């Protein structure tokens, strides 16, 4: 599977993500600089990593979402190419309009950095096929702006259409309806605050994150 990891100034999970992708898929992702206007052909995954792109200036993800590469990502997402945004990547995808809602400062104002229990809400997307709906998994979070917000109508729609991919079992950051990750209507764009790329092998304390990449590999081939 060909893949790309987008690198912004201030990204800091891009290499972890590349290691995870290589480990699961057997091939190195292309590392694509944010100022590039084009993506490689034939991608099975576009991964937008965590970090603090542009120092979180203006709003988390706001500047990155207006980078030249984002036009190509929006276009590819429209064609059905899987796009995964983790942490700052999730913030960037909402700012770019690929996912609804916004991620605000954590309700407690504290940076949260710990493992959290997540309930899988959707096991039908290309990212979540290796999980079972209702299953509880553990993944690390590390963020300051993970407080998911959207209007009630949008939240109802996300829940009604099965677009809530992951939910915090206990409140972590004030997120509306404990939402930790959502997919778009077509199911090919996933944004999530927890870090699946940090639990890829047992030496890291578990492999609950690995299954996300395995499911994608299986779906995309």
């Amino acid at each position, binding site marked *: 599977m060909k893949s790309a990891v987008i690198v912004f100034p201030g990204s800091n999970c891009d290499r972890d993500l590349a290691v995870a992708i290589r480990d699961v898929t057997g091939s190195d992702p292309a590392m694509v600089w944010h100022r590039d206007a084009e993506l490689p052909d034939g991608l099975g995954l576009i991964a937008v990593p965590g970090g603090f792109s542009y120092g979180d200036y203006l709003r988390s993800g*706001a500047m990155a979402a207006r980078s030249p590469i984002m036009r190509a990502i929006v276009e590819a997402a429209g064609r059905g190419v899987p796009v995964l945004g983790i942490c700052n990547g999730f913030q960037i995808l909402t700012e770019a309009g690929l996912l609804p809602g916004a991620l*605000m400062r954590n309700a407690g104002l504290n940076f949260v950095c710990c493992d959290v229990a997540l309930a899988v809400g959707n096991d039908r997307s290309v990212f979540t096929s290796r999980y079972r709906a209702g299953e509880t998994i553990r993944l690390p979070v590390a963020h300051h702006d993970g407080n998911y917000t959207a209007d009630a109508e949008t939240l109802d729609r996300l829940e009604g259409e099965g677009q809530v991919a992951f939910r915090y079992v206990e409140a972590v950051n004030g997120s509306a309806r404990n939402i930790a990750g959502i997919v778009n209507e077509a199911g090919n764009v996933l944004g999530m605050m927890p870090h699946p790329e940090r639990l890829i092998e047992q030496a890291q304390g578990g492999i609950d994150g690995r299954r996300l990449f395995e499911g994608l590999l299986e779906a995309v081939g």
Partner: protein
Amino acid sequence: MKTRVYVTLKGGVLDPQGKAIHHALEGLGFSGVNDVRAGKLIELDLADTVSDGDVEAMCRKLLANTVIENFRIERVPA
């Protein structure tokens, strides 16, 4: 022309930073503070050719996230 853009959170959106400021003010002994909302002020120095419509487009495309924020534009005569 100097132009100010005020970006504020929409009414229904919780404001954790405003809450923290509120608590801090109470901690300093200021009473009578009913609520605090924190926003942003962005000052732009614009050529005279930049229209009101252009500034509004700047707000919608970047300066404000209209999912959670409102904006108000104030043109400041020289």
